[in-house]
């Protein structure tokens, strides 16, 4: 099927670019709409809403940010650590403004990075239900957050 020009522009913005080295789709072969609807069904099955996830992510982000880089315990096995980065990254959806590049790294007690939370990734989930494609280092698995 032929893509509408806006869709084509959006797909370009979701690929690795001057702003996001990894892009937003990872190596996911699905279209963005499929990623969004598959994640929405996962949430439905889990009986939680997108807003629940967003609230949890914002809470972890705020808690870690307040500690200015000191690790904070978020569950028995996970710690969150705020990593500051000056500068801003624009949303891949045109016209939505730019978000600070600060991030929170969530790590298991064994030291392996489980996921990153960034202001942009929270925005994409909140506004579009877009958790990003599989393989994107900034994808947040809904099941994983639900389990926390």
């Amino acid at each position: 099927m032929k893509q509408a020009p806006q869709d084509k522009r959006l797909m370009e913005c979701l690929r690795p670019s001057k702003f996001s080295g990894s892009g937003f789709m990872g190596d996911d072969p699905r279209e963005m709409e499929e990623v969004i609807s598959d994640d929405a069904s996962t949430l439905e099955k889990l009986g939680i809403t997108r807003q629940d996830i967003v609230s949890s992510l914002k809470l972890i982000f705020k808690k870690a940010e307040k500690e200015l880089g000191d690790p904070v315990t978020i569950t028995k096995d996970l710690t969150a650590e705020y990593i500051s980065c000056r500068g801003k990254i624009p949303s891949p959806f045109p016209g939505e403004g730019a978000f600070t590049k600060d991030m929170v790294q969530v790590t298991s007690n064994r030291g392996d990075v489980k996921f990153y939370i960034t202001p942009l990734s929270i925005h994409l989930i909140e506004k579009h239900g877009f958790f990003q494609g599989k393989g994107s280092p900034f994808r947040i698995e809904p099941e994983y957050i639900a389990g926390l």
Partner: protein
Amino acid sequence: MLASILTALVFLTATTLILSLLLIIAEKWILNYGPCTIDVNNGQKVIDIQGGSSLLNSLSENEIFIPSACGGRGSCAYCKVKVTQGGGPLSPIEEPYLSEQEIKDNVRLSCQVKVREDIKIQIPDELFNARLFKAVTASKKMLTYDIMELGFDLVEPDEIEFTAGQYIQLESREYKGADSVIRAYSISSLPSEKKKIELIMRRVPEGICTTWAFDHLKEGQEVSLSGPYGDFKLQDTDAPAIFIAGGSGMAPIWSILRHMHEKNINKKSYYFFSGRIYDDLFFTDELFGLEKKLSDFKYVPCLTREPEHSSWKGERGRIPEILPRYIPDAQEYEAYLCGSSALIEACCSKLSELGLKDEKMYFDKFE
């Protein structure tokens, strides 16, 4: 039958040709905006250009470099300038990046403004000094596990004029599928060392430019950079100063403090530097050394997670908690902050409590 098909074909071809011709003529005559002028800062510089290009490009072709990170796509919002005449209507691309006040003040994204008529703009004076430089990577030195000092020798032009506290924009090269990008870095070297530029860079997980600089950039490799930019600098007053930084935020303060020493600028000053453990500190001997060289300067590194049993004798805890012990009343001071937005916010709020006025707190406006 054949004759009518042929007639239709000829008619269609002729119409297409005429339309294309009309389009070419229209582009030449209607879309040709002819010679236009860009008046910068009320006649400080007047540039004659051929209309039709973006304001950002027209300016850079005339050696006025406005900082930009997205190459004119209207998505980084760094290239803001005040257009006081002739900018045309605000485009929907610009709107989300401008505050209400900026819109009232005629601030525009220069990459989205097309020069179609004579234009008047206002830019900060220091942008007249910004140049494009070719440089050679002279040194890469790890300062902590994720912070590196990068040294560049300037080649063309081979000297830079800047004020301690300003920043440059570094262009990375393409690597492993990553695009070449432009990112801002504060200058950590001294303004008097005109032939080189030093930066202090922190690695960012999944970051394009920092991954390039840490893992791919080689000593001896040529790079492009532009600058200087920014108005973060020591104010010309006698007020005592509080410097606050964390991580790579050390860069502009390191330049300012050594510049103070070199120029014999003596003012009471404190430097609070935030780290987690002792290994997060760098330039420690040099900074304690400055206590002896500057007349009334104190360096206060603050560690938040240094093991209790370690031999560390300095401050333990966060800067906002430690500040009041050194400065119970901050009314007379000026504060210079560089670091994460969270650190800046927390310290500014404590400084307000201690009596420091907002207009005396200085940090880069892109934070």
